[in-house]
């Protein structure tokens, strides 16, 4: 039986990893900081996927981002989705050759709508993750944002989501800007925007601050995967503990026999830099 997925999302900007709160960014540390506080060669056993997004607000440097991606994938044998600033097939190709398995697109879904088609023709639909950021208006209505949250789309969110679901994308990543980084719990109202029957996997993101929030997400039958980008709440062995609690809570997640890494592998990893 297909397992649910716990996804950890890393936000990268200009050499640093960021904490985002309602899409306001705060630099937390560089790659060395991340590796000290999140040893991905170990932590990857507590997550089912890693999402790495370049959320740089100014001009992005994709080659540098690719180098960071490569560093993250050393001894980290977990599926990786990369994105942020992907506007053409060439950028996607660079990310895929740097360790990414899937490409996340966001703003282009509403503007350069042919990109999803181009990417799926090149890499297959399963390779394209459609990410949609949602925020409440003053009257409490959920609206779609794009361009790092700076552009508001007037069309009803439900219509925009319906149109994305007809595009050649493999999964849909719904992110609540209102809950983003707050640690107050996932925003289940965004799921109400989905049609009754969704035939693509749904990832819910934004607001998970502890294992109970994750658990509630997994218990919702509309959700195939839950993502958290909270760099502080799951620091150290936080993800490991959270996963343990999810399993105790009855969520079917894959388990790993870690013996292989410790006993059977005799050689040290070569320098891949």
């Amino acid at each position: 039986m297909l397992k649910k997925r716990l996804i950890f999302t890393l936000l990268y900007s200009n050499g640093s990893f960021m904490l985002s709160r309602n899409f306001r960014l705060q630099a937390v540390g560089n790659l060395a900081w991340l590796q000290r506080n999140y040893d991905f060669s170990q932590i990857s056993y507590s997550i089912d996927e890693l999402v790495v997004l370049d959320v740089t607000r100014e001009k992005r440097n994709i080659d540098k981002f690719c180098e960071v991606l490569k560093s993250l994938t050393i001894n980290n044998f977990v599926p990786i989705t990369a994105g942020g600033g992907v506007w053409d097939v060439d950028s996607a190709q660079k990310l895929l050759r740097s360790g990414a398995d899937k490409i996340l697109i966001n703003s282009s879904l509403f503007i350069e709508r042919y990109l999803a088609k181009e990417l799926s023709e090149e890499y297959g639909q399963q390779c394209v993750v459609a990410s949609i950021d949602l925020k409440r208006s003053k009257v409490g209505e959920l609206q779609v944002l794009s361009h790092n949250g700076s552009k508001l789309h007037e069309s009803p969110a439900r219509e925009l989501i319906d149109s994305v679901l007809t595009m050649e994308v493999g999964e849909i990543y719904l992110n609540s800007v209102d809950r983003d980084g707050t640690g107050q719990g996932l925003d289940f109202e965004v799921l109400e925007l989905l049609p009754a029957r969704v035939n693509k996997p749904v990832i819910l993101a934004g607001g998970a601050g502890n294992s109970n929030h994750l658990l509630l997400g997994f218990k919702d039958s509309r959700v195939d995967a839950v993502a958290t980008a909270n760099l502080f709440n799951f620091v150290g062995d936080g993800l490991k503990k959270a996963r343990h609690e999810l399993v105790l809570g009855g969520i079917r997640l894959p388990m790993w026999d870690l013996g292989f890494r410790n006993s059977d592998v005799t050689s040290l990893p070569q320098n891949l830099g």
Partner: protein
Amino acid sequence: MKNYKATVIDYGMGNIWSVTSALQYLGCEVDVSSDALIIERAQTLILPGVGSFRKAMNALISMNLEASILNSVLARKAKFLGICLGMQLMGTKSTEDGETKGLGLIPSSVDKFSSSEVADRKVPHIGFDQVHFDSDGNLFKGISGNQDFYFVHSYRMLPPDSKAGLSTCNYGIDFLAAYENDNIFATQFHPEKSQTNGLRLLDNFLKV
């Protein structure tokens, strides 16, 4: 000291880095190549791949790699592992984006999961799922029963009627998850993304 060597076929469609990184972790010397002559002579070949079948097959043909692969695998019996799209390319044909002929190393065609097969399940099939494997084979040696491996695909092959070692995964229908027949190996899932289960499988392949 292990003395593994493998040539990863680079035809512009692969997640080359991930495969290479996993092989190197296992102590394998990796040669990434798109050179038909090198592939013609290699002892151990790995065909990774993320992409559409037609584009991939066209790339293999235009780079003169189809013939070198077939020579290596069929005439010289080089050890061969196809991963994900790499496995699908080993099929007879695919209906992805029109009909395209495959390498024909596995007697099965590649088709999209149909809604009648998967019933209420979502397509693509994405995530860790249980593989029911043939324990007599080499690939799954030392892996305890029905472990999870990472899948990400919309197209599938059905288990062929063959004496080869067939492993399956059920997604409404039993589809081919792994294949082994003499020097020919394939996995629909990504061993390089399947944590220790996948590393063990890759190590088993290198050991054969």
